[in-house]
């Protein structure tokens, strides 16, 4: 297994009148290609902050994050945009779908700037929607879909640009247990069949059980 992500002494602190607050404190670990890593911890333990730093969405206060040979922590905004567009897929608790786009259009969104024809983009979206079991819902607006279906659309959108890393933030946080299992099964299947690396933040022990590696954060530090 090759290492895809290396986090070294990653620190994120916020200044406060009472003293610096460390959201992350010298966090270090490595992720191999194909890993399904779950990051757990109580509220305020730094889970989401860690995910944001890994995506280059917030600037760290210290340490480095290396994705293959790309150093996320020292990249420019445009380099980070390109990195997220080409290497990363996001799945979020709120689904973050655009309400006026159909399922297929939402899925195609990351390809909006890709040098592909409309037909090629449509074909790619159809394939991914088939993969997540929504080929017959491709022309539906988000409001016409159930919560579980919306999250499947979000997962399809995360996969459309053939990323190497999926960052998922509480992907089952808005779903009931049955739907949660469906989504986690889907992520697990994608992880296994496509050898896709997944980092998933969750506070659910049931969801955490899906990972082959577990990282537990407490007060910004890796404790397990």
């Amino acid at each position, binding site marked *: 297994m090759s290492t895809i992500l290396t986090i070294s002494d990653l620190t994120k602190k916020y200044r406060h009148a009472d003293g610096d607050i460390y959201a992350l404190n010298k966090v270090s670990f490595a992720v191999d290609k194909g890993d399904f890593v779950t990051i757990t911890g109580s509220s305020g333990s730094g889970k989401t902050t860690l995910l*944001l730093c890994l995506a280059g*969405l917030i600037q760290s206060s210290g340490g480095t994050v290396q994705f293959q040979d790309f150093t996320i922590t020292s990249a420019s905004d445009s380099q980070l945009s390109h*990195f997220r567009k080409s290497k990363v897929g996001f799945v979020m608790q709120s689904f973050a779908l655009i*309400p*006026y786009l159909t399922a297929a259009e939402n899925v195609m969104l990351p*390809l*909006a*700037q890709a040098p592909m024809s409309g037909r090629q983009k449509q074909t790619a979206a159809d394939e991914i929607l088939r993969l997540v079991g929504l080929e017959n819902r491709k022309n539906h607006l988000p409001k016409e879909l159930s919560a579980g279906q919306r999250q499947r659309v979000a997962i399809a959108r995360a996969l459309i640009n053939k990323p190497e890393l999926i960052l998922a933030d509480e992907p089952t946080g808005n779903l009931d247990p049955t739907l949660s299992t469906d989504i986690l099964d889907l992520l697990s299947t994608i992880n296994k069949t496509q050898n896709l690396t997944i980092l998933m933040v969750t506070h659910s022990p049931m969801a955490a059980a899906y990972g082959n590696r577990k990282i537990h954060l407490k007060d910004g530090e890796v404790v397990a």
Partner: protein
Amino acid sequence: MNLTKLVWLEFKYHKSQLITGLLAITLGVAVIVGIRSVSVVSEKAVAINLDNLGANILVLPQGANVDNYYTADIDAPTFPEAYVEIVATSALQGVDNMSPKLTRRITVRGQKLALTGILPKNELASKPLWQKSGLFGAGAKASCAPGAATDNGAYKDEKLLRKSIDAIEEDECILGSSAAQRLQLKENDTITLEGGGFKVAKVLTETGTIDDDRIFAHLHTVQRLLGIKEQVSAIEIMGCCNAITDGLLSKLRNLLPDTKITTIGQIVATQVQTNKLMNKVSLVFLVIILFVGGVSIGNFMWANVNERRKEIGMLRMIGFSKGVIYRLLLAKALILGIMGGALGYIIGTGAAMWLGPQFAQLAVQPLPQLLPAALAIAAVVALLGSAIPAYLAGKIDPFINMQEE
């Protein structure tokens, strides 16, 4: 799915916002187009009215001065009447009418009066106050503004206007009101002037000018009686005020080098000042409307950006750079601007055509040349108004979607 489609779909989704934004631009452009459409017509009307104040340029012999012209100095120098033809046949633009005159002070029945030889129809055009006297019927009018329409809507041929000389009978004269009073003459009476017998064809109503003390007769008759054949003491010219500011005087000087060309300053100053005032008023309106329009669009775009914060954050998260976010919002502003500009042109023109005759007694015609300007102004205002909201949209935190519960 591409960026253009994304903009269109967002437009379709936010229809009420689209209408609000469109309304702001449309109304702004409609007001500009409406005002401009009316002001173009009113500028022409004002220009014609200003020209109707009378002649504004005097051509005098080289050694003469304006006093000679007004006092009818008996020894005042003269120059050839043929100069009228030289100007008339030249390609000079902006000379709307000419009135050659020969004036001498004479004594009639013990009264010292000025005898002025005129070519009547030209004189009429140069003296709008006379037009009310009814002597010559519908007289020629000035055609200062380029393409100014006549009463029947046809465009005037300036050359024809210059040459249209309607001869007064050689034995007729016209008396100024004061001259008639002093000579105790009325219409159809007879009088002898410098040995020639004349019938009083008309007594002019009081004008309050030097003309009240004049006796007017046909130029050629006056020339013969005074023994100054084919000579005139002055040519009054009705020059288009715009042409005067564009150098008509120097062109006339080049054409008639041995004459003295001077303006009747007060008239020209009034004409130029009025034109400047109208231009300034139009400009002030334009600036105010552009400012208000820009702020309205900026406000609309800012509301749109705020409503779409999560959406924009998500786009940033999946790899849309700040530049692409700017482009998305500015493309929307551009489309809004072009649509608003086109609609504003149509509504503004329609409103001007409808309201012009009712409120300003002006028949307003569509001005197609305003359409590109309306589109350009609306697009630029929409882009400028949206620049700050677009910039701030680019700074929206991409992780806004990850921060919620």
